[in-house]
């Protein structure tokens, strides 16, 4: 990033501009007036009284010994220059000469009394007055220059007096505020945009990249964010590829093991049609049941591998439990029937909705029923019901077998239950097992 593109630079520019401009506010206000307004221009001449005095005295000394005509002419010229002033001169005899403009209060013939009165007035309330002896000599008479005090007083810079100046100052201040506001609101808007872009996840679950328009601090932040998104997308892709590969591998292993099992199963079935001794029949039956068990075990083993590696994708949704259990029972009923089980179903008539993955839950119930068929055959009973226990809705699966700890438990049931346990945990469900020699009860419920 070049330093001139940075926000810091921009902000410093604004501040500097304000600092430089502020002292120029008054001149900028007045300068155009000075050029445009003659009156003001005139007024300026009277501001510096000292300069006026010097000028008047200089003129007076220049007129040393001048004829009245000469003095008149000079005063007329000066009058043209200082049009707002009152000028007159008094000759040595006390006669007022060339009064411009005419003033009634000034006597035509000066007495001593008049002089004293005039001086007193000019010091007190009267206009600003300059008196100079012509030629610096009191015998040649004197000349007078009068200006109203309003002209000699400095121009009022007071904001209160000058509404336009007040408005102008306010306008400049507002302009500065507006530019600052514009600057910061632009930064703010971009930051908010960036925040929104970072928060909203795109199709892949990762936020989309942001569009970068300027290469300043915020633009750089956006670039860094985009780089992060790139990395994230890459690693997500890699992860997905690995997942696919792993699933593929496991599916292939499963497939390759099942194919010979199918052949064994087929040949065992063909053998059944041959005439066999009772011992042969028994062996065949054993082969068949072990093939079934092996296939079940394979399934469980592979599921367990995927589950424990967290590679089983879970899709939780609001699921009607009664419907799901009934659907499971439909597929298991013929098995139970064939094995001579009494199937006792008491499901509540109210809807029971759990937030679970229906595929997983079906798998859980399958595993539990599988265990009942395999290990609780002696009880010839399976019960499925809903109960209220400690204010919670509980699904109960009950058998009247010899219990989990009493021998009948063939090896392999363990992994089925481990899968149940893992899946329940993932779905925020909990379970309890009550098992005795007269049967097993399994309670499923939502975690609180």
């Amino acid at each position, binding site marked *: 990033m070049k330093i001139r593109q940075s926000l810091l630079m921009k902000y410093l520019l604004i501040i500097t501009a304000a600092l430089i401009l502020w002292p120029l506010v008054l001149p900028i206000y007045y300068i155009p007036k000075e050029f445009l307004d003659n009156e003001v221009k005139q007024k300026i001449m009277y501001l510096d009284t000292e300069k006026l005095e010097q000028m008047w005295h200089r003129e007076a000394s220049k007129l040393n010994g001048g004829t009245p005509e000469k003095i008149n002419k000079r005063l007329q010229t000066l009058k043209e220059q200082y049009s707002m002033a009152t000028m007159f001169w008094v000759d040595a005899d006390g006669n007022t000469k060339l009064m411009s403009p005419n003033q009634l209060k000034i006597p035509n013939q000066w007495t001593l009394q008049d002089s004293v009165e005039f001086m007193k007035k000019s010091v007190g309330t009267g206009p600003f007055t300059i008196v100079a002896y012509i030629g610096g000599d009191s015998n040649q008479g004197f000349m007078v220059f009068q200006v109203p005090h309003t002209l000699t007083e400095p121009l009022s810079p007071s904001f209160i007096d000058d509404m336009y100046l007040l408005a102008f100052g306010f306008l400049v201040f507002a302009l500065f505020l507006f530019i600052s506001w514009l600057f910061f609101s632009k930064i703010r808007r971009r930051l908010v945009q960036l925040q929104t872009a970072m928060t909203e996840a795109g199709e892949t679950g990762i936020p989309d990249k942001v569009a970068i328009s300027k290469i300043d601090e915020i633009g750089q932040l956006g670039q860094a964010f985009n780089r992060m998104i790139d990395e994230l997308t890459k690693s997500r892709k890699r992860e997905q590829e690995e997942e696919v590969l792993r699933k593929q591998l496991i599916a292939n292993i499963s497939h390759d093991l099942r194919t010979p099992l*199918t052949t064994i199963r087929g040949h065992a079935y063909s053998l059944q049609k041959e005439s066999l001794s009772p011992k042969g029949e028994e062996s065949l039956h054993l082969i068949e049941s072990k093939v079934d068990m092996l296939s079940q075990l394979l399934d469980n083993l592979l599921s367990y591998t995927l589950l424990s590696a967290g590679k089983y994708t879970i899709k939780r949704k609001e699921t009607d439990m009664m419907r799901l259990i009934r659907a499971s029972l439909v597929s298991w009923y013929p098995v139970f029937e064939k094995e001579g089980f009494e199937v006792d179903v008491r499901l509540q008539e*109210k809807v029971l909705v759990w937030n679970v993955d229906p595929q997983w839950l079906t798998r859980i119930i399958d595993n539990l029923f599988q265990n009942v068929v395999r290990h609780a055959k002696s009880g010839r009973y399976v019960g499925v019901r809903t109960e209220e226990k400690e204010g919670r809705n509980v699904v109960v699966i009950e058998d009247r077998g010899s219990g989990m700890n009493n021998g009948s438990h063939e090896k392999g049931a363990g992994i089925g239950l481990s899968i149940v346990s893992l899946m329940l945990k993932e779905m925020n469900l909990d379970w309890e097992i009550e098992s005795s020699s007269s049967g097993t009860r399994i309670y499923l419920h939502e975690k609180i």
Partner: protein
Amino acid sequence: MRKNLLYIEDNKEIGAWVSEDLTERGYHVIWLTSGEGAIGHMESADLVILDIMLPGLDGFSIGQRLKKEFPKTPILLLSARTSIDDKLQGLHFADDYVTKPFHPDELAARVEVLLRRFGKISPPLIQLAHISIHLDQNLIVDSRLNVEIILTAKQFQIFTYLLRHPNQILTKEQIYEAVWGSPYMEGDKTLMVHIRHLREKIEKNPSQPQIIETIRGIGYRVKQ
């Protein structure tokens, strides 16, 4: 008439055994070891049994192609791939999914259900206890007195729905949703009332039904 089954399986041992078993059960089986040329046999096939792991095109691709061209021919996937993902992918186009190793009786039963569901086997007459049903004529006759049993539209729909899924348990919500076409509400007694009226018409003794069996807590079943 013998039904034609098209069977695609690359494993020689399994293929030979399944073909033989199905032939013994009265089907005419055409067994191919890959998907090549399968389309040529589709015209005459009543049902396709398809493996997934095949040399060349896999069963998913073949099945989808066959289903697209012959939507009225049922496809049964028979595979050693057991993962849920595979089943879901398969059932997108296939009509049933059986995993290996399987029991030949189960395969045969599923083949028959599919054939029946797709109308490949039209049962001219179903005899259940004392009543005979002519499904093609929408006619139900009490064979003891030879009088027609008149059912209301809903009763008839429920009964034929059960008949079309012989030996299967159908849950209350399945029946309700198939017949009424709207979602079943838990606790709704409408279906129960209809079944009771239906039984009063077809059963000898409605309190001890012989034809429509109640599977307590689950649903109903008609055994054939």
